[in-house]
């Protein structure tokens, strides 16, 4: 059972463009939604996170948009750069439930120069 569904699997964007990755979840008990960035040969690292009491969170060029009623959230990367090329994972967890992250399937993002 895939509790967090992520799309697309792969994405190619031109330098300077906007990269958009989408996730949908099923469990309404999830109350923390992080995005992780993973470079080849490395472990995932926290990029940005949001709680369901806000609809948007922005950190630099990275923005999470959250739609609680639709049970969807997305990552937007503005002015995408070649250094942003990586695999991105959305995730969700229930606070108080042993911090167990449930991950989406991942999106391989390539930014062409």
């Amino acid at each position, binding site marked *: 059972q895939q509790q967090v569904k*992520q799309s697309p699997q792969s994405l190619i964007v031109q330098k300077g463009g906007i990269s958009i990755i989408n996730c949908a979840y099923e469990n309404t008990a999830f109350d923390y939604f*992080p995005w992780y960035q993973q470079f080849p040969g490395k*472990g*995932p690292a*926290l990029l940005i996170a949001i709680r369901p009491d806000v609809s948007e969170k922005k950190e630099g060029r990275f923005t999470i948009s959250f739609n609680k009623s639709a049970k969807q959230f997305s990552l937007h990367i503005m002015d995408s750069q070649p250094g942003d090329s990586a695999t991105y*994972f959305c995730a969700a967890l229930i606070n108080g439930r042993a911090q167990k*992250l449930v*991950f989406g399937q991942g999106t391989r993002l390539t930014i062409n120069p």
Partner: protein
Amino acid sequence: DAGITQSPRYKITETGRQVTLMCHQTWSHSYMFWYRQDLGHGLRLIYYSAAADITDKGEVPDGYVVSRSKTENFPLTLESATRSQTSVYFCASSAGDSGNTIYFGEGSWLTVV
């Protein structure tokens, strides 16, 4: 600050052999986790531990054993390795408070032949 380290980073073993992947963290985090990463599945939780001597199953625990006699160490053992256990294994840790960041190691690449 060493953070979280995994060993070995790369391992090739034969079907039926026992393999132990080591994980060590220097932050005294309460929570530790083992995930496996496979194409198309994202990261899936194998086992987690809330504290020393407290462990519990995740999503895909079959064929794996863990122990946590010390807070800083969380070894993962494949008792009788199978080809389906060929994967990249990530150890992670968290202080465990609400919304605390979960930090990942750099991964252990395991091939079972």
